[in-house]
């Protein structure tokens, strides 16, 4: 007898390894947060076991109210300058080769938190130039100077998630704007960055709408695309409208590859930073030869 709550393809192995626990200890030691933990990512044990994680900087309270996201909302907390050195020390201590940074939206700050991103990236590159740094940024109000600041700080990959299709923005991302997010990626490309974006599926979008978004992203030169399934993180979160099966993810991947993305990762458990290191390794030479 089997108790079935989810489709059969939504099963994730739990890795209760030494490395998993070591990463958690080091993160606590340096007073660092990860979006993996805050958002209850199902890949957490797998990624931590490989010493992979996505650091959440600028506090853990977001000024936006995206309905799919489990990160806390409300009055943001003051972030601390020591975070810069703490991150670098943790990365060196764990021997991380590919660092992924993300943040809550900080619409309360004049620079939206861009300078803090840049400080961390510059410091990391100064201490350990070989570390690849990927930043999954909020939209910074699509202000060119802020995006330029982050891109030119020594960043290797700029990620900004489009998240969903334009029609669903009012329900899913009420404080964001589809065209603003496209503009962020366009500006990053203008300054020469390798760019990446992603969608979470299962929120009620239609196939033709997903294809339109993929076309829009491709037109502005986005290099890497990730497509994953929305999973409800808690009882008060938005309900899953549809469980997308693996065949449909393959269908989207084939279309996206045909459109011209350099790398497409699609699957139920794909998240925007999942296998980030492998993706970067796979396409870096291709990107640099352009």
């Amino acid at each position, binding site marked *: 007898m089997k108790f079935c*709550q989810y489709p059969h393809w*939504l099963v*994730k192995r*739990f890795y209760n390894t030494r490395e998993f626990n070591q990463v958690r200890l080091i993160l606590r030691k340096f007073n660092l947060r990860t979006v993996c933990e805050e958002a209850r990512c*199902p890949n*957490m044990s797998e990624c931590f076991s490989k010493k992979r994680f996505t650091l959440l900087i600028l506090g853990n309270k977001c000024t936006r109210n995206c309905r799919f996201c489990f990160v806390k909302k409300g009055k943001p907390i003051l972030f601390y300058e020591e975070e810069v050195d703490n991150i670098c020390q943790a990365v060196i201590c764990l021997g991380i080769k590919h660092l992924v940074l993300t943040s809550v939206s900080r619409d309360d700050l004049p620079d939206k938190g861009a300078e803090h991103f840049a400080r961390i990236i510059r410091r990391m590159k100064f201490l350990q130039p070989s570390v690849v740094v990927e930043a999954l940024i909020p939209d910074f109000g699509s202000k060119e100077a802020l995006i330029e600041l982050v891109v030119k700080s020594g960043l290797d990959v700029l990620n900004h998630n489009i998240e969903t299709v334009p029609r669903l923005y009012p329900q899913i991302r009420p404080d964001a704007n589809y065209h603003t997010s496209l503009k962020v990626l366009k500006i990053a490309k203008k300054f020469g960055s390798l760019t990446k974006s992603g969608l979470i599926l299962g929120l009620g979008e239609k196939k033709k709408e997903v294809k339109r978004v993929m076309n829009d992203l491709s037109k502005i030169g986005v290099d890497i695309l990730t497509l994953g399934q929305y999973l*409800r993180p808690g009882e008060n979160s938005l309900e899953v409208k549809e469980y997308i099966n693996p065949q449909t993810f393959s269908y989207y991947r084939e279309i996206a590859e045909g459109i011209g993305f350099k790398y497409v990762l699609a699957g139920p458990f794909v998240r925007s930073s999942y296998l980030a290191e492998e993706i970067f390794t796979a396409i870096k030479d291709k990107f640099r030869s352009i």
Partner: protein
Amino acid sequence: MPEIILPELGEGITQATISYWYFEEGEHVEEGVDLVELATEKTTFNLPTPCSGILKKIYANVGEIVKVGDLLAIIE
């Protein structure tokens, strides 16, 4: 006798529902193979076996809700 305890499957995930036992009591299990499927608020996890041996006793049946730290099984 190694005890199989429900670990913390994610930040703030305090419980899970037993979905399926891949083995029955008395069967031999190999280290690393999936032992039990657990449904949480967000998704389903497979918990692998930490060591080889005989699955001596199962303490939580399919459909039962278990909390982090609860004893799920014993391997001898």
